[in-house]
């Protein structure tokens, strides 16, 4: 009895001490640790209640893109912990390594290529350990392989794949340096890219929606295995592990707040317990980081040669720039912008700022990668009671003195607010623009951004829009609409447009329009 009481007291005292440590907030049943996390870690959430029971710490995950997260950490984000698929980019950023007080790898997942079984069988790639990145590039160049990959400037899986491909093509055997980035073979390889996305999870969803027109995608092994185990795929994906090398995400949990060292040690010790590592493997299809827990039979046993990662930020940034400006299929971004009367004043100003940032006004790292890129086509459709102006721009020069960007800037500065809100007429006009452009330029990656601050009150209604949309040619219908909620826009109306077209909704009420447009650029 007295022993029980003592235990109880010790527990309560421990909780009291834990609650009093700096930088954290006391919850009802433990201490909350804020964690800046990559979106693919959503699949870890089912483990968190058990982690809290065992350690007393509640992890509260806030999801951001990997590059965005790295930039926030360097800029002094106050989260106690961070958890991304990789800490390498952060470590390369000036001031980044210093922000990591401790790190511990939790789980592993290589970035590989999933190819539809029939396609892989036709190419002789099924269970073939000798396929190389060059083999994949050759099929892409020949127009026989259309794949999805995330934007390397926004998401780690695309970034890691880009490094792998570039290194394999450089054929030096060593880590990439600036002089060995060869755009030629990269262009061949990425001529097969038919789908982009700002996150690995969205890429998987988008692949499922467009699976009939694609042959595969580059993503984490864990995501590909999960899709294969599920029922959403009409055709299973065979996993191809290129022989010349792959890169593995190692999901380090990072301690940012030194005063939380004890918490960090307890949380990582729990996550690295053998039975938890096994559970992670079974529930997420990621490989255990704890060496004594061996990967089970869901993973192939072949040796995966790991490619070195570039050692300098300059090389990494140059590689991303080569991808965006030269190697990837160029984008055609269609912006459908509400200039109704309610946009008058600060709302119109934020819209202008968001667009001006894309022409070079945002000099942050993520801002630089989000800018309009070389070869990009931009269509701006302005609407109020009707579509009243459509302007096309082509960006070839991206320098600060570029006349292409200056033209966009001076146009944006003419925007004026007035009139009603004909959302559906405007979106439909965007689809007609996309359809016409596709006839002459089928290899661009098309996207529509719809920004509105109100509900539809004139022109087509939603049912008429849906009927017209479904009569569009298949390729135009495949263009996704990314809808930006602003002001008094109707979440339901925008969600319907996004769901119908395979896009998604961004909230410009809680985040700035500049941030939202920057995030959306990862999907364009």
């Amino acid at each position, binding site marked *: 009895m007295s022993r029980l009481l003592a235990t*109880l*007291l*010790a527990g*309560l*005292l421990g909780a*009291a001490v834990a609650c009093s440590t700096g930088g954290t907030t006391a919850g009802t049943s433990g201490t909350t640790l804020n964690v800046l996390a990559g979106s693919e870690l959503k699949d870890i959430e089912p483990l968190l209640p058990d982690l809290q029971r065992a350690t007393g710490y509640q992890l509260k995950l806030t999801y951001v893109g990997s590059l965005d997260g790295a930039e926030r950490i360097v800029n002094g984000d106050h989260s106690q912990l961070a958890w991304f698929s990789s800490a*390498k980019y952060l*470590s*390369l950023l000036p001031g980044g*390594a*210093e922000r990591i*007080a*401790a*790190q511990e*790898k939790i789980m*592993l997942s290589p970035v590989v290529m999933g190819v539809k079984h029939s396609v892989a069988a036709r190419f002789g790639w099924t269970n073939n350990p000798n396929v190389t990145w060059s083999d994949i590039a050759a099929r892409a160049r020949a127009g026989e392989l259309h794949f999805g990959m995330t934007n390397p400037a926004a998401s780690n899986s695309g970034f890691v794949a880009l490094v792998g491909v570039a290194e394999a093509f450089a*054929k*030096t*055997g*060593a*880590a*990439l*340096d*600036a*002089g*060995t980035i060869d755009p030629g073979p990269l262009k061949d390889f990425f001529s097969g890219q038919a789908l982009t996305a700002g996150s690995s999870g969205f890429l998987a969803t988008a692949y499922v929606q467009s699976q009939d027109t694609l042959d595969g995608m580059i993503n984490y092994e864990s995501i590909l295995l999960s899709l294969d185990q599920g029922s959403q795929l009409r055709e299973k994906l065979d996993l191809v592990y290129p022989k*010349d*090398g792959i890169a*593995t995400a*190692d999901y380090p949990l990072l301690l940012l707040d*030194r005063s939380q*060292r004890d918490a960090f*040690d307890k949380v990582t010790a729990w996550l690295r317990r053998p039975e938890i590592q096994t559970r992670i493997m079974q529930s997420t299809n990621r490989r*255990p*980081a*704890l*060496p*004594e827990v061996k990967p089970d039979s869901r993973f192939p046993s072949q*040796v*995966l*040669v*790991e*490619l*070195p*990662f*570039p*050692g*300098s930020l300059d*090389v990494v940034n140059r590689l991303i720039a080569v991808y965006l400006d030269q190697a990837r299929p160029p984008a055609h971004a269609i912006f459908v912008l509400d200039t109704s009367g309610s946009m008058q004043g600060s709302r119109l100003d934020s819209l202008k700022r968001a667009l001006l940032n894309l022409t070079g006004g945002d000099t942050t790292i993520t801002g630089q990668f989000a800018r309009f890129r070389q070869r990009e086509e931009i269509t701006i459709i302005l609407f109020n009671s009707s579509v009243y102006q459509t302007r096309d721009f082509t960006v070839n020069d991206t320098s600060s003195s570029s006349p292409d960007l200056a033209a966009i800037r001076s146009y944006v500065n003419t925007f004026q607010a007035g009139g009603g809100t004909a959302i559906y007429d405007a979106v439909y006009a965007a689809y007609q623009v996309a359809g016409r452009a596709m006839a002459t330029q089928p290899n661009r990656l098309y996207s529509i951004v719809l920004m509105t601050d109100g509900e539809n009150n004139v022109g087509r209604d939603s049912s008429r829009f849906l009927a017209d949309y479904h009569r569009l040619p298949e390729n135009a219908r495949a263009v996704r609409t990314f809808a930006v909620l602003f002001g008094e826009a109707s979440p339901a109306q925008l969600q319907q447009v996004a769901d119908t077209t395979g896009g998604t909704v961004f909230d410009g009420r809680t985040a700035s329009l500049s941030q939202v447009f920057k995030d959306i650029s990862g999907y364009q």
Partner: protein
Amino acid sequence: MSRILGLVLAGVLAVGVVVAIVASLSGTFAPRQVVRVQGVIGSEKQPFFQDPAVQAVFQRNGLDVRVDTAGSREMATSVDLSRYDFAFPAGAPAALKIKTDHKAKATYEPFYTPMAIATFRPIAQLLVANHIATDEGGHYSFDVQAYLALVKKNARWTDLAGNTAYPAGKSVLLTSTDYRTSNSAAMYLSIASYVANGGNVVTDDATARRVTPLVAPLFLRQGFAASSTEEPFQDYLSIGIGKTPMVVVYEAQFLALQASHDRALTSDMVLMYPTPTVLSKHTLVPLKPNGDRVGRLLQTDPDLQRLAARYGFHTADPGTFNAYLKAQGVAAPPQLVNVIEPPAYDQLETMITGVEQLAKDGGTP
């Protein structure tokens, strides 16, 4: 109802706090006042400092030792040492630099460990067949001069004769930590610069500058390197031969796993010793009086020496170390004869900044 429960809990909590305060005042739990001591250490010693048995010895002596980890060169340059009672880098050059800068009176060298290379038996045998390593029965020795010749011509694994074990197109390279921050990389640089300098320790800046381009590819071709020695060793253990076929480690890291019969270590994993090698002398620099107490205890307390042996460290008294390994059924590590001294901190610094400059100038020479 819930309010009553809340009151009861608050009462219980208050009682708990009182009990705890009384207990600590009356000395039931601790013999005397325990002072908190804050140290900054190389990450390789973190498991040792976190060991409850080690903590208990410190507590028994009135010390509550807390540690942060940092790379050795970071400790000597960028870490704000005013927050700490002691610094405990893994190598003598950084320790001597800290000692001089902070006017510490003494240093303590409670344990040391030779630099080694963790690899896999098929890799070791492939290196033996290509005259880069020799089988010494139980361990291998790794010919640094032959290795430098391979790196000079940027040999790939596929260039090695008779290679069916590891047909990878990437360069033959030892994986090390970040040469700019970590002691084990500085020790690796010490070995490589000695060999590149014709079998002499680099003792002046002119020689250091001459040798720099010869050793730079060892580091620059690796690309990104981790800042702590534990990281690539963990990659070796969990990701394995595909990522890190050969990794520069402290012998202690490997021995500790062997001695504890850790399941992470498979029968394929073997140690090679570079010829020549250097000893990493873990050197504690006291910055405040309480730090001095930690250093003295580590060097003299028989329990702490025994515990250090558990982590694979050679102790001041070799008997402690050998007895422990024997009790665990682990063969004593070889008596290394070809052991050199690392260059002084300033020459290491010249080479490190030189490699850094080459990296900025456009990469691999």
